[in-house]
């Protein structure tokens, strides 16, 4: 803003040295105030329990000087580059290339994902990580229905993940039902709980909705911990059956898949199978969501996010619309939960803490609410990126947090902030995020 107004005046750069020095001095002053207590004075409990302190004015001076110098350099660079003009920074050719890359990104990612087990067949670590990423992609896509499309802020999404996981674990261990029977049941049960959660929160909006959904997530977790006779309490459920390929187990035994195919058994077979299983589930979630967006129910979700009063004036039943959003999102969470249970073979309430809800919500927000590709990229960045920084030990969280902050400054509406219309007459043009509402409960 400032740059462009400066640019319009005839002599903006004449303000040169004085302007730059003044700006640098102000930055240095702010740094001095900020760091004088944080770095300038160091306090510690002494050996006798008293407070001892000492000063580190040398360090303080160094930091203030660095800020002063840095500010001058940044200002010089800014003047050298000139005002941030869109056309100058990104030439049309690059823009075209970028938009082409954007169109090709999704298919390229999909093809790459299909090839992951082929490329990394020997690397168990990467395969496990890929399965984890895909689980979160699926959870993100599921929550995206509630948060991104319907605009209902749900902080307790992990509850449905837990319902799905425990549904499968308990049905399989107690009644010996197979994974493929339990999978739809887990989805249905989770959807049922989604509707149950939906009813009390129908009248709530914004912050209040967020707090009640948060409480719901905790309630489910606490019930699981305390209902020892059913869920095993904090000990969890172990010995959950592994999935079978439509009845054929992936074991080294006589009736195993490897023996039937006449190939040598390898434990990687199961990992690869799990990989394609979660990939199929995630793609199903994606396909259904994309279809739903183009159906009246999906449009009603988005309309609800845009303006609930107008929806009511158009005869849209906002109650059922909200409930279907909760139920659909919960159902996908339930599927993912059943998958989680069969993959781990053991589940306990520790896997379903608020942190999981927060992580999935962060994926949806970071991805750009409502964008399928954005959510997938965000899941990759959040889960994969977190692993990437493993080498940094205790600084991992710090670097990761910083990266998130920078990303949200650069892209406040998420990686893919614009909205694609669900129907068009002539051509589909992306709608700027400035116009799209975030929803308010």
């Amino acid at each position, binding site marked *: 803003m400032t740059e462009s107004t400066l640019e319009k005046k005839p002599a903006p750069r004449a303000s040169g040295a004085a302007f730059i020095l003044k700006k640098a001095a102000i930055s240095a002053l702010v740094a001095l105030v900020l760091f004088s207590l944080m770095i300038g004075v160091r306090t510690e409990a002494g050996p006798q329990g008293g407070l001892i302190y000492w000063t580190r004015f040398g360090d303080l001076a160094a930091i203030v000087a660095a800020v002063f110098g840095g500010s001058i350099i940044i200002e010089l660079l800014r003047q050298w580059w000139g005002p941030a003009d869109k056309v100058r920074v990104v030439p049309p050719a690059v823009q075209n290339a970028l938009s082409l890359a954007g169109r090709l990104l999704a298919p390229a990612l999909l093809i790459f994902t299909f090839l992951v087990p082929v490329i990394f067949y020997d690397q168990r670590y990467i395969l496990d990580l890929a399965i984890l990423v895909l689980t979160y992609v699926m959870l993100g896509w599921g929550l995206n229905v509630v948060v991104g499309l319907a605009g209902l802020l749900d902080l307790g999404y992990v509850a449905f993940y837990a319902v799905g996981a425990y549904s499968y674990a308990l049905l399989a261990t107690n009644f010996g039902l197979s994974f493929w029977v339990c999978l739809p049941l887990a989805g249905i049960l989770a959807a049922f709980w989604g509707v149950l959660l939906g009813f009390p929160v129908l009248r709530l909006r914004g912050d209040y909705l967020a707090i009640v959904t948060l409480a719901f997530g905790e309630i489910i977790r606490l019930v699981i911990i305390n209902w020892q006779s059913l869920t095993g309490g904090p000990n969890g459920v172990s010995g959950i059956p592994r999935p079978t390929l439509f009845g054929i187990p992936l074991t080294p035994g006589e009736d195993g898949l490897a023996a039937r195919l006449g190939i040598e058994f390898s434990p990687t077979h199961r990992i690869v199978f799990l990989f394609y299983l979660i990939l199929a589930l995630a793609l199903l979630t994606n396909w259904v969501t994309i279809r739903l967006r183009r159906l*009246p129910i999906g449009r009603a979700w988005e309309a609800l996010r845009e303006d609930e009063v107008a929806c009511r004036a158009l005869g849209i039943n906002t109650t059922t619309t909200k409930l279907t959003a909760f139920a659909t999102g919960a159902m996908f969470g339930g599927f993912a939960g059943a998958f989680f249970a069969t993959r781990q073979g053991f589940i306990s309430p520790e896997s379903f803490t608020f942190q999981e809800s927060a992580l999935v919500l962060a994926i949806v927000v970071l991805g750009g609410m409502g964008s399928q590709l954005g959510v997938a990229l965000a899941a990759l960045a959040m889960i994969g990126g977190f692993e990437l920084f493993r080498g940094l030990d205790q600084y991992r969280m710090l670097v990761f947090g910083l990266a998130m902050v920078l990303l949200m400054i650069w892209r406040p509406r998420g990686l893919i902030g614009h909205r694609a219309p669900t129907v068009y007459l002539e051509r589909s043009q992306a709608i700027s995020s400035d116009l799209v509402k975030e929803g308010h409960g």
Partner: protein
Amino acid sequence: MSETILSVDRLSMRFGGIVAVNDLSFDAGRRKITALIGPNGAGKTTVFNCITGFYKPSGGSIALTHDDGKTIQLERLNDFRISKQARVARTFQNIRLFPGMTALENLMVAQHNALMRASGLTFLGLIGAPSWRSAEARAIDLARTWLTRIGLLDRADDAAGNLPYGDQRRLEIARAMCTEPALLCLDEPAAGLNARESAALSELLLSIRSEFGTSILLIEHDMSVVMEISDHVVVMDYGVKIAEGTPRSVRDDPKVIAAYLGADEEEAIAVMESGT
């Protein structure tokens, strides 16, 4: 067939100790344009909110009689059912489009209930059944017809929030019409429009009445629009009806002139000038 589509009988609306509408009775004619006018704060929008189910009236009844003779008591229905079952559509004083959706999408959302049935409550739509596809094509055609009518066909794929103000007003009316209403309630449709746009609006409303047989109830401050298109005018002040009749008779009513003079000089002058 009854000549009255909407019959408001002794309607009252109180907010705590404030009486916004007091014992108001009036009728709106079938295939007629009825205007509800009055100074600011007279309670017009409150009446609208009672009719369209956004408020539950404190007393009185609102009866809507459809073409088939079926009568629906609107005060017993709540919010979305007024639009869905009684087929009363409305627009808002401050435009309430879905700004992040395209003009076409706005009109598609308006056909929600019909499309929901056609999509077999989503399940037929999910598997892409042919019956759903043809229903969707028909819905797009209806939307296209309305976009053509309001002159926005070339901006069908633009976000509604990006359209100029006057276009947004017309789009909101088209959206309300896509619900195929029996009664269309317009809250200050000409607010913020220039003279040319107002004239176009009058034409649009007259064509809606003559071609679709939709009855229209409107609140309006723009007297040129009211005088030009209304068949019947109801004047409110301080929550009560002070006059009603043809535009001509209302215009010359001393009570109406006094109400406008007492409330707002400019509007009183506008009333008198539009008569000469």
